[in-house]
């Protein structure tokens, strides 16, 4: 609106001040709305950044596609073309958790994950996979040789010394690379118990014999830091409904 004589500087700043106050209040309301929809009481307190190398590696493994610049969801249709989906009726989540290790851990094979259950809502875990990077050190004349090792992932309850096997997988390695290990049931059980810390132990049978090593938590090799990808949805909406 064009300024009139009544809104000259001598009239004070009442009107603009009120407008600014309204904007601030509206902004606060929108911020609260976003946090509510994400089931968060407050914004997370980020005190130290995640190493970029670890983040980039993990994001490349994201299952559910990319995030558009404006945030709108893209779901490929039958022709393989991306369409904007206005009818996603349920809230789905994908959580990438990076491995941590206790400095006092007696074993170098131990690591743990802190998996948030996002505001204590009932999450149904549809899939959870542990991603581990295996480094192959070929000796002279051994390039391209297939090596077979057995990887066992053990679960350990917090405070308990006993472990039990969760996954056993025969891995064939030709060169260094990422391998996945399913942990769906273990993570579902963890969230059902209301706990958030999952201790793991990774043992590799035959790795030493064939000069293979799984990369665990190593500050000098952040790009290959183990991580856990959990795909979950709210437990009360078991069916995914999509209108095209």
């Amino acid at each position, binding site marked *: 609106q064009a300024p009139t004589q009544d809104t000259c500087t001598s009239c004070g700043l009442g009107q603009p001040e009120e407008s600014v106050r309204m904007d601030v209040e*509206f*902004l606060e309301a*929108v*911020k609260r*709305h*976003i946090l509510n*929809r*994400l089931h*968060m009481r407050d*914004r*997370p*307190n*980020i005190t130290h950044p*995640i190493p970029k190398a670890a*983040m980039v590696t*993990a*994001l490349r493994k*994201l299952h*559910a596609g990319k*995030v*558009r*610049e*404006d*945030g*709108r*969801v893209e779901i490929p249709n039958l022709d393989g073309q991306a369409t*904007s*989906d*206005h009818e*996603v*009726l*349920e*809230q*789905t*989540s*994908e*959580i*990438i*958790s*990076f491995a941590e290790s206790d400095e006092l851990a007696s074993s170098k094979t131990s690591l743990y994950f*802190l*998996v*948030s259950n*996002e505001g204590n809502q009932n999450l149904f875990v549809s899939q959870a996979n542990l991603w581990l990077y295996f480094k192959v050190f070929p000796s002279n004349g051994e390039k391209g040789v297939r090596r077979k090792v057995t990887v066992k992932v053990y679960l350990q309850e917090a405070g308990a010394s006993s472990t039990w096997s969760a996954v056993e997988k025969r891995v064939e390695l030709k060169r260094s690379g990422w391998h996945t290990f399913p942990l769906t049931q273990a993570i579902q059980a963890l969230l059902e118990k209301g706990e*958030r810390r999952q201790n793991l132990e990774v043992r590799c049978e035959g790795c030493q014999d064939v000069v293979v090593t799984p990369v665990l938590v190593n500050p000098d090799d952040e790009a290959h830091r183990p991580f856990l990808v959990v795909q979950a949805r709210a437990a009360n909406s078991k069916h995914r409904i999509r209108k095209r």
Partner: protein
Amino acid sequence: GLECDGRTSLCCRQQFYIDFGLIGWNDWIIAPKGYYGNYCEGSCPAYMAGVPGSASSFHTAVVNQYRMRGLSPGSMNSCCIPTKLSTMSMLYFDDEYNIVKRDVPNMIVEECGCA
């Protein structure tokens, strides 16, 4: 749906964009860069209520049934509400430094109408 342009007082969609960088939220929200916190505002005169395509809701259907029977619910006020909402996908850090990708339904107001 009408877009608010400052010239109409009728029910319209007001665009409102919040840049996460400007409010200091870009340290925990990885993507998108901002949020379209659009909202609906404006008046809904009687002739706009239940206009096909503007708001297809159960309430609109009930009001139309009243009209068809010659019972004009004059005291019934019509509301300017979102009639089309879209899902927003967000990628962010949580308290545990996990990266979370979440599709949040009904986050963005795409169209407004009278119901």
